């Protein structure tokens, strides 16, 4: 593989950048693999990469029905954080933060990781108390957390509404300084390029349509480009998990819902933090191109349409304008939607299943982008060793049966109500 470096950049400039190697090959399916990863989103690509890198398993194919990174990986708002209270979530995410910090070097690909910090705003004394508790829990797990009062928040984000008589006054906020954003496409491409260089086949435009299961064991998959034999399958299809689960005669604690996001026209640098509104569901950051990137609630009903409706967008942006009134002057540039695998307690599932050789990775809800490296790393371990790692022990499928839920937000079984 050709290394990306300043020297190669200069060298290739002489030939007008016409002679760069392809970042990855367009593979055609072989008859048989050791492991097949279904879904060429962030989690599938990262899983294949760590299978090859950490476990020396390279006879691997990633099967993607569309194009690589065209699902939620290419639609998210790129927030990366580990501001969780429960140990299982906190330790898993913080392990991920470490991988994020090293990712550009590790992948030899600039993923533009930008640890600019996230502030969750509080709008009442009660909310300040809750944030203090969360911040303390984070610090007990060695995660950075700073509780800010109103004046301190004003210092950092003066463009927020600090006037008197607002409906939701800003009392303060909880900041995780090491949180931030990254370029989602680059993460997908970086993992794909490295996985490919270690021998992984990346097969696009190939839909998995069924499974060959007999005697409780995986024997192969059926795809739109023919049958393929395989002993181990990692299911990484995010918002399509319910569809493939049905083909395996499984019903899972996940519902598929629609989440929208949008960006404004680009403006000069105004906001250098990720900020979330505490009296509803709205968050904002500014992209490197200057667009204000915004999102919030689900549309609220089961959906596989990758496009949303106006009422939710209007509701979410009303919150945004309440928080930062200057937004009302900007023009909307684009809106889009993705289909979300909403688990019943708001936490993901990375586990084995009752079918031998079938491994499940789903339930990412609003926050699966930040989990990309940690999810790939632990899922690769689970597949290679046929047992879960300590880091994803809490993300078991059986927790719904045994009552060991990871209900971080206290939303119970209807995480889509929020």
């Amino acid at each position: 593989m050709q290394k990306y470096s300043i020297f190669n950049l200069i060298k290739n400039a002489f030939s007008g950048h016409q002679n760069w190697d392809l970042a990855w090959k367009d593979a055609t399916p072989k008859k048989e693999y050791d492991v097949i990863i279904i879904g060429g989103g962030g989690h599938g690509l990262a899983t294949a990469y760590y299978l090859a890198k950490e476990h020396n398993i390279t006879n691997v194919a990633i099967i993607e029905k569309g194009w690589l990174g065209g699902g939620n990986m290419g639609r998210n708002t790129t927030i990366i954080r580990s501001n969780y209270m429960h140990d299982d979530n906190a330790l898993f995410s913080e392990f991920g933060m470490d991988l994020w910090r090293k990712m550009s070097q590790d992948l030899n690909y600039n993923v533009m990781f930008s640890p600019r910090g996230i502030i969750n705003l509080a709008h009442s004394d009660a909310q300040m108390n809750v944030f203090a508790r969360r911040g303390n829990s984070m610090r007990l797990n060695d995660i950075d957390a700073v509780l800010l009062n109103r004046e301190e928040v004003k210092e950092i984000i003066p463009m927020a509404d600090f006037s008197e008589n607002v409906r939701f006054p800003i009392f303060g906020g909880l900041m995780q300084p090491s949180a931030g954003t990254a370029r989602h496409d680059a993460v997908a491409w970086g993992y794909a390029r490295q996985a490919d260089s270690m021998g992984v086949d990346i097969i696009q435009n190939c839909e998995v349509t069924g499974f060959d299961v007999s005697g409780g064991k995986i024997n192969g998959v059926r795809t739109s480009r023919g049958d393929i034999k395989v002993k181990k399958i990692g299911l990484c299809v995010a918002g399509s998990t319910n569809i493939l689960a049905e083909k395996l005669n499984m019903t899972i604690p996940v519902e598929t819902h629609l989440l929208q996001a949008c960006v404004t026209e680009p403006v000069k640098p105004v906001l250098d933090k990720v900020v979330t509104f505490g009296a509803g569901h709205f968050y904002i950051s500014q992209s490197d191109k200057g667009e204000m990137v915004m999102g919030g609630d689900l549309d609220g009903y089961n959906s596989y349409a990758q496009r949303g409706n106006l009422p939710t967008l209007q509701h979410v942006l009303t919150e945004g304008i309440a928080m930062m009134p200057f937004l009302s002057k900007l023009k909307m540039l684009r809106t889009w939607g993705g289909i979300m695998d909403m688990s019943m307690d708001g936490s993901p599932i990375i586990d084995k299943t009752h079918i031998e050789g079938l491994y499940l990775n789903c339930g990412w809800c609003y926050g699966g982008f930040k989990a990309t490296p940690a999810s790939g790393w632990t899922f690769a371990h689970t597949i290679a060793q046929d047992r879960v790692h300590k880091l994803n022990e809490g993300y078991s499928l059986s927790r719904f049966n045994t009552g060991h839920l990871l209900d971080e937000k206290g939303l119970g079984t209807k995480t889509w109500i929020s």
Partner: protein
Amino acid sequence: MLHIKCPHCGMRSQNEFSYGGDATIKRPELNKEISDQDWNNFVYNRKSLRGKHLELWQHLSGCRQWIKVERDTATHEIFKTLKANQDI
């Protein structure tokens, strides 16, 4: 914007309703021996079909009745609405 025809009030906009999820899920019968798996299926496990989906909505800012809606989860087309005690 979805337009939902409340069987009690007529055609109204989505803003007046709140969503209640899969309408085919049945609560296990009272006073019967029920396995953990049955409870699990009732409380947590969902098919979340792509295509025709029978679901509950509440006409919250209207008559406040729960209703059933048959809707396509891929196109959002609504085929039919029913009173909560009616079967499709």
